């Protein structure tokens, strides 16, 4: 009951706020405000109210919300490269999972001798596979700062190397998408291997605490949620600043007419690489926040289908608008949670239909719907439609040339 009202109010508020968007600047601040406000309210309701209270928010909802926000961040990361730069990455799950593994390794080391075998150094899965000592790449991961650094450095570096190779050789369109898919697929296969020392299929799990706080305590969960909301807000603001800077405009220019940008003297591959790296870092941060909240990281996160799903969230929300990606991720995941519980045998029908309907009827996603509403409002009021318009209005489809070639 409580979650019902809560969710309704949450999405009601969000929707209302989005509907009132006039200029992206205002609306975005509104989004941040709502995000932080709702999180704060939920946290307070969870910690301060007794469980019997009708306004109490269960820890389940807190965790769920935390997960959604991580997904929202991931979706935003995909949107930055896809919506603004036309790089359709079908492998962003790789960066998300790598960030998650970094955090997972730290959490694993924090277990110490509380594992089932009581080995102070080795994680359980290494003990029962008879490993004698900790592999080199696990060294130092017991330090939070180091793990954090690695969880950003590794995906960042991977994105840089991949991007540098791909963009420099002007791999574009479908080819690029399929390559990103190959990348995450290869990583998935690699992480499935038990010899890799990341726990194989089971991945890393059974975490105990983080920075000394018990991960199962309500307080920690609330803190994690708030941290996620805060970081989402931060990355959102940062990403907005980027896309509204000249860099952002160059990126959109590259999306729509890359040769033009190049003949104007822009080294487009450089822009793409940095944007890709930035996006990968955002995805990695999302992954890092995701793992302590859901309590497990395993190679399934690398699965190409997961990455495709993220793209679908963005499409549902509306690509080329940062808030669209966030709303899309929240909505689709909420729908998934509801559907899997309400109609466990048929939820894939509902989800599949949703995807088809959204793509066919709402090419710009829900954000496009809002914009359309806004435009008609503006037109009826006889205003001049000359204000700054978000990048989502771009009609061009960079991939067309290649695919139709």
């Amino acid at each position, binding site marked *: 009951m409580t979650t019902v009202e809560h969710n309704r109010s949450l999405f009601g508020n969000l929707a209302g706020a989005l509907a009132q968007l006039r200029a992206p600047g205002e609306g975005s601040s509104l989004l941040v405000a709502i995000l932080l406000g709702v999180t704060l309210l939920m946290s307070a309701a969870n910690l301060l109210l007794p469980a019997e209270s009708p306004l109490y928010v269960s820890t389940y909802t807190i965790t769920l919300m935390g997960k959604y926000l991580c997904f929202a961040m991931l979706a935003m990361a995909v949107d930055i490269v896809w919506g603004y730069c036309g790089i359709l990455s079908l492998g962003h799950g790789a960066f998300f999972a790598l960030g998650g593994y970094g955090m997972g390794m730290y959490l694993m080391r924090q277990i110490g001798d509380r594992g089932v075998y009581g080995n102070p150094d080795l994680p359980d899965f290494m003990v029962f596979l008879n490993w004698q000592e900790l592999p080199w790449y696990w060294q130092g991961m017991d330090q939070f700062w180091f793990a954090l650094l690695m969880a950003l450095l590794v995906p960042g570096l991977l994105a840089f190397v991949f991007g540098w190779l791909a963009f420099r050789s002007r791999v574009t369109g479908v080819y690029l998408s399929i390559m990103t898919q190959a990348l995450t697929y290869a990583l998935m296969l690699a992480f499935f291997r038990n010899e890799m020392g990341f726990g194989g299929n089971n991945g890393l799990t059974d975490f105990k605490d983080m920075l000394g706080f018990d991960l199962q305590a309500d307080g920690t969960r609330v803190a994690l949620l708030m941290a996620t909301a805060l970081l989402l807000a931060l990355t959102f603001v940062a990403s907005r600043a980027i896309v509204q800077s000249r860099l952002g405009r*160059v990126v959109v220019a590259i999306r729509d*007419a890359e040769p033009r940008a190049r003949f104007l003297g822009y*080294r487009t591959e450089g822009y793409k690489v940095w944007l890709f790296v930035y996006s990968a870092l955002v995805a990695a941060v999302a992954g890092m926040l995701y793992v302590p909240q859901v309590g497990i990281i395993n190679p399934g996160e690398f699965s190409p289908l997961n990455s495709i799903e993220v793209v679908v969230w963005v499409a549902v929300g509306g690509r080329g608008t940062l808030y669209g990606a966030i709303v899309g991720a929240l909505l689709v995941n909420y729908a998934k949670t509801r559907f899997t519980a309400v109609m466990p045998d048929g939820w894939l029908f509902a989800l599949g239909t949703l995807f088809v309907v959204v793509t066919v009827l709402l090419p710009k996603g829900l954000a496009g719907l809002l914009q359309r509403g806004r435009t008609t409002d503006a037109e009826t009021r006889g205003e001049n439609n*000359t*204000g700054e318009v978000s990048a989502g209005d*771009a009609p*061009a489809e960079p991939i067309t040339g290649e695919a139709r070639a």
Partner: protein
Amino acid sequence: MNVTAQARELLRRDTTWPFLVPRQRAVDVSHQVILYVEGLSVSFDGFKALNDLNLYVNDGELRCLIGANGAGKTTLMDVITGKTRCDSGSAWFGRNIDLLAHDEAAIAQLGIGRKFQKPTVFEAHTVYTNLELSLKGSKGAWSALTAALTGEQRDRIDRVLETIGLVNARYQLAGALSHGQKQWLEIGMLLAAEPRLLLIDEPVAGMTAEEAERTAELLTSLAGEHTVIVVEHDMEFVRSIARTVTVLHQGAVLAEGTMDQVQNNPDVIEVYLGEDA
């Protein structure tokens, strides 16, 4: 060269390492010639698009390139702007810059601007932003992150807007412009970049006669301060602007001279028998 020799070479005290030498940006036109193209050949799958082509363009000149489809006009532009690699030959910008050693972005930054056959502008941006992005200046990703327009740059954009006659459309999305307006915007974008050499591919395609006339005026006014190379099929238009015309045929220069000279050239007549002349 063996390793020690290489190392010695690296450690010589009387030279600076190549990557520490500041890149010389300014083009040297002390011989009045801004573009030297010599012995250029390009082939695609056996088809010779350019065949030992030689071309010299003087600084400040307005040059028209004409020729039938497949004569190699666009390929020549592609090579000059770094889009296509050539099989043999050389292309120098002034006396000091080897164009073949640079990529598109570098060539653009050196001061060679190019307008495409099909008008290509950033449709999701306003006219103003289109021009802003074209301004001369640092084009690196990091500087773009913090870039803001200076007063001088604003003035420059305003001037360009006036030149191309899009003052009233400055906040319109480029995608919403008419075909002719897009052509102008693209020329405007080149102007904003303040290039030394402009390569303009079919500027009046799809324009009304009136628009074409204005374009002709614009181009002639640009010559002198800039060097302009125009590729065009419309002979009327070429006649209205041309001082020197180069005729390309099968990837090589067939004739060069004033419009009249060219039109009376027996080779040209033979090739273009009955056409336009």
